[in-house]
């Protein structure tokens, strides 16, 4: 199997006339996690959005190498941002099943993924009844239900208690141990076992 690599080269991003990223380059390999660290407002989230194809950079390029050539580039990745992409008015199982269908996973994994995310037994409950932490868990359950090599996570432990944060750390550790890649924007420590690199963002980026 080919080694998978995420390569970012000379990324430059200007938003609202303000330079957010300038000449950012890095490479993440299979079995590696990359932390994007730094205080709020230095462009961690923007960098993730560029990697996720949601923002078009003014300069530079990102490429995911070694993926399945039949699959379009953006379908190799999972992006978990601030907004959970969960609909109230639908049950937990319906919400997750929808994303499994849309993202192209195996429909049989829904209830398994829910219980692995600590939401077992709540399948039929309306997603509007969940607490913020449970909503975050439901959003992260997508990572379990649909296997994809590259994870882009924006503050994955926000709204979670320490137990939840441990769970996220275990989840990411397992993922990179089985050859996955992860880029994580965070200002908190997440104790990931495995090969971890850190990219520090500073306010001087202008």
């Amino acid at each position, binding site marked *: 199997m080919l080694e998978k690599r995420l390569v970012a080269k000379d990324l430059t991003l200007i938003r609202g006339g303000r330079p957010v990223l300038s000449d950012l380059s890095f490479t993440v390999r299979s079995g590696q996690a990359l932390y994007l660290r730094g205080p709020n407002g230095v462009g961690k989230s923007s960098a993730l959005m560029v990697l996720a194809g949601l923002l078009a950079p003014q300069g530079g390029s990102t490429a995911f190498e070694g993926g399945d050539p039949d699959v379009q580039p953006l379908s190799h990745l999972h992006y978990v941002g601030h907004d959970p992409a969960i609909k109230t008015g639908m049950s937990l199982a319906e919400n997750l099943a929808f994303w499994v269908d849309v993202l192209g996973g195996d429909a049989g994994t829904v209830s398994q993924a829910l219980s692995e995310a600590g939401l077992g037994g709540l399948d039929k409950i309306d997603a509007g009844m969940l607490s913020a932490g449970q909503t975050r868990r439901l959003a992260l359950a997508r990572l379990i239900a649909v296997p994809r090599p590259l994870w882009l996570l924006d503050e994955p432990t926000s709204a979670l208690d320490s*137990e*939840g944060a441990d769970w996220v750390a275990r989840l990411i550790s397992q993922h990179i141990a089985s050859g996955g890649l992860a880029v994580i924007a965070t200002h908190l420590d997440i104790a990931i076992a495995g090969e971890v690199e850190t990219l520090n963002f500073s306010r001087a980026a202008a």
Partner: protein
Amino acid sequence: MADTSPNAHPGWFTRIAHPGMFMGWSRHLVLPLVAITVIAFGVGLYFSFLASPADYQMGDTVRMMYVHVPTAWLSQFCYAVMFASAIGTLVWRHPMADVSQKAAAPLGAAFTALALFTGSMWGRPTWGTFWEWDGRMTSTLVLLFIYLGIIALWRAFDDQLKAARIVAVVTLVGAVNIPVIKFSVDWWQTLHQPASVFRMDGPTVDGSILVPLLVMTLAFSLLFMTLHLVRMRTEITRRRIRSLELAQARAAGGAA
């Protein structure tokens, strides 16, 4: 019930109207109500078709009055029930008033639609048209819109406890406004002289017609009471479901 706070002075009414108590005593009421409703409809239909003559003026079309008049009566009675419940919601903040309001709205809409439908079925052979911009028909149509608007408002809220009080305000405004609508529509009628005027000669109500009319009105009113009671019970059960589901979500916590 999870959604009621214990009252400081539990009078007899408070106790009877407590959702838990209500579920207890109303359970024994459902079957008898169903039974009398069915009997009343049986008797009513017997009189409407077999034991009453055709009207000398309207002919057999008079038989449509036996569904039209009761539904038209219920379309207004149901609003009266909602009006009373709305006051209960706003003044005493009684949970049963919310439940009663919510359960009555679709019934009112259905009976109003039925009154309009049977009216237009009657109008076609009698007036030669399904619809006439007649004051009473027009204001009944507006009443249907008000019912449907109230239902839409109920459904637009996630929080049903908050919805109850806002819907109650709309119900009160509607109640005040309905006479105004009725009045203005009549006035509109005289203002614009319609191109073709159809007037129904007020039929002299004969005893042979009055009996089926009264029995059918009773039957439909009983039907309304039965459905309203069952729907209220269902609504209380739904609220219990909601609190149980919330409890389940809380109990699950974040335990991985």
